[in-house]
């Protein structure tokens, strides 16, 4: 299945954003390995991190089929300024409450997103989305469980969750904002209605958080034009760590 050049270019942008969201989030969650509050959660969060990074690979392989790019080169040798990740993904790891709240917001977003992408007119995208959606169902159940328990746990767990909501919730606006090229993809039936996606995600997540008694702060303003033109200050130091091994020997045959 071949796409018209302008649609192909638009889809490359979209897939890169999907991949970078998952890759950067997965990298942050992987930082819990050996540090999670329970041995079982240590394994569980490492699974989640691996899944998210695996999903990033899946999106980058779809991109590779369109433009011949090399997923490993994109991940390990791209400058922070060329990443397209959402601000929500770029936030530092934080405490367990922030970790689980961010994961919940991302999982709830992905549940709505992947259901729509599974109906894409671009078959490879629909197939990948259907595959990824299965694992995300488990992620969502896990992160939602923690949000509920931390919300009704102790004073400390609730306070920590309140602080996490204050940081994470406003950033949902930028995560959900369409890229400039998305309208063309939407018109071609390759992607979903961005407005409909945003409404569904906000409805589902705000209902869940309000159910637990949280007051939601306003959304952060989204830059006009390209909402993902700018990175947060957190990404460059994150990539410095993530890319250091690959960059130490760019020609290594195995690592």
């Amino acid at each position: 299945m071949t796409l018209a050049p302008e649609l192909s270019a638009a889809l490359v942008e979209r897939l890169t954003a999907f991949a970078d969201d998952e890759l950067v989030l997965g990298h942050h969650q992987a930082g819990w390995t050996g540090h999670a509050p329970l041995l079982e959660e240590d394994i569980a969060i490492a699974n989640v991190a691996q899944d998210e990074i695996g999903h990033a690979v899946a999106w980058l392989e779809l991109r590779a089929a369109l433009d011949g790019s090399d997923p490993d080169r994109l991940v390990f040798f791209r400058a922070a300024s060329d990443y397209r990740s959402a601000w929500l993904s770029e936030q530092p790891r934080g405490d367990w409450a922030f970790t689980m709240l961010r994961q919940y917001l991302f999982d709830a977003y992905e549940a709505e997103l992947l259901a729509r992408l599974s109906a894409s007119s671009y078959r490879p995208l629909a197939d990948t989305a259907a595959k990824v959606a299965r694992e995300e169902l488990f992620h969502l159940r896990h992160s939602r469980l923690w949000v509920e328990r931390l919300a009704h746990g102790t004073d400390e767990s609730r306070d920590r969750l309140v602080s996490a909501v204050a940081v994470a919730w406003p950033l949902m606006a930028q995560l959900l904002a369409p890229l400039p090229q998305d309208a063309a993809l939407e018109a071609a039936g390759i992607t979903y209605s961005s407005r409909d996606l945003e409404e569904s995600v906000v409805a589902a997540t705000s209902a869940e958080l309000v159910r637990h008694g949280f007051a939601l702060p306003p959304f952060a303003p989204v830059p006009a034009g390209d909402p993902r033109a700018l990175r947060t200050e957190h990404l460059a130091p994150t990539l410095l760590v993530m890319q250091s091994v690959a960059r130490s020997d760019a020609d290594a045959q195995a690592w």
Partner: protein
Amino acid sequence: MTVDGQLPRWEVFKQDASSKAHAAVGSVHAADAEHALLMARSVFARRPSAVSLWLAPRWAVHEFTREQLAEALATPGTQLAAPMRYRVFIKSSDRRSMAAYEHRGEVVASGTSAALRAATPDELPLGMWLVEDAAVIASAPADAEAWFAPASDKRYKQQSEYAVSVKRHPATREGT
């Protein structure tokens, strides 16, 4: 959470295929039943193969060694408790690949001593677990697609798949 800071322990039983019996694979610590199920999936079913999980809180698992079984069978039983259903798990071998407690069926009895009388085979097994049926929680059949199916599509690399040649640094040889 208990006073010593430990979350309650749950025994995990995994079924590898619908034709096989559930077998004990280990335990998890978790805050409640739902948390325990999710932890069991993460810890024991991340890789192939699994089709179903059962979990039981530790307090609902009654363990008997072969010696305890022999002694209990030789002692007249008392039947004070109300009848309840137990799931019976038997350990029949010490061989490492077969050492797990495997589900062999159910028994309804008034108390564990009556239950083990009813459930013990003629040839004494190496051990028996009686698990209170009412306390057992299970993964839902509808969850199998999200919990267990993805693992079967994945390629898990063994160490040997990485073409890494290990060369010792001279300093490490002289070190000790």
